[in-house]
């Protein structure tokens, strides 16, 4: 709950401080790099969360990371502010909410597609085009492969999940057999 509130507040502030669309995309990319680093390096989280490590050291680390990722000034300022206010660990929800804000401002929607095998460019194109037509937005399609689905695919878009995988159909069939009344 608190994460959502903090995430929303800082994400909106960051979005408001960037006027051009390209800047928004770059800022999102920069935040994504930070989050990815925090995910892959758990020690980094401990470093920022540790109360006995001086604030200057944490600020120095932020500067170093910003230089490495070559992030925008606005993102650098935001991360420094979060470090000062000891809210750096809320970076994930901030990025998630910022992504939504950016997508809304740029008129685009993200769709996640999980399939049992790699989708062809023809299939992704058709999906992107159809979804864009239905939602009237540019669609950012994120695909991933999960062989356990056996066949078909699962689509996630704007909080909606449509599961057309064979795995799901088999699960439904299993439920139907289990619920079948025997006289």
């Amino acid at each position, binding site marked *: 709950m608190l994460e959502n509130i903090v995430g929303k507040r800082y994400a909106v502030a960051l979005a408001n401080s960037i006027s051009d669309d390209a800047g928004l995309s770059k800022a999102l990319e920069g935040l994504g790099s930070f989050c990815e680093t925090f995910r892959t390096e758990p020690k980094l989280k401990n470093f920022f969360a540790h109360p006995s490590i001086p604030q200057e050291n944490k600020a120095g680390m932020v500067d170093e990371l910003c230089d490495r990722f070559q992030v925008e000034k606005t993102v650098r300022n935001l991360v420094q502010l979060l470090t000062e206010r000891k809210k750096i660990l809320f970076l994930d929800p901030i990025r998630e909410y910022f992504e939504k804000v950016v997508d809304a401002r740029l008129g685009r929607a993200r769709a996640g597609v999980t399939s049992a095998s790699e989708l*062809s460019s023809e299939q992704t194109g058709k*999906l992107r085009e159809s979804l864009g037509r239905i939602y009237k937005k540019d669609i950012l399609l994120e695909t991933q492969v999960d062989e356990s689905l056996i066949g078909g695919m699962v689509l996630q878009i704007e909080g909606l999940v449509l599961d057309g995988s*064979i795995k799901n159909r088999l699960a439904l069939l299993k439920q139907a057999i289990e619920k079948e009344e025997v006289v």
Partner: protein
Amino acid sequence: MPQFEQVSVFSSLIFWSVISFVALLFLLKKFAFPPILEILDAREKKIRDDIEGAEKINQDAEKLKADFDRQLKTAHEKANDIIQLAHDSSKKETEKSLQDTQGKVRQMIKEAEHEIQASRNKLLSEIRSYTAALTIASTERILKKAMDEKEQKRVVDETIEEVIQELEKRA
């Protein structure tokens, strides 16, 4: 008659005889009869008292008999009442015991039926679950073998169509 012809001879004798008789009678009446009469009266009184006493005893005995009969009757009635009460109580106890036993038997039957039904349902559920798992596992294995690249593409194409139709329906 010759006897009466000699009355004059014996007149003085007769006279003295009469006088003696009267005197004797007087003396007897004066001294002998009263105690005898008294004894007789006393005897008569005693006999009468005895008779009265006997009658009274008889009456008392009758009364006692009547009382005894009445008490006996009451005792009989009480005994009958007690027997009836005991009989009723025993009957009630027997009926209650019978009802209790019948109730317990009914409850046991009901519980047994529930248990049988629950076991049946559990067994059927396990059979269904096992059948479902077996069916799905077999189907999954067959499908995995059957899903070549071409089939994968066909299924994904179909799914894309279904998803798009569903989204258009919702839009």
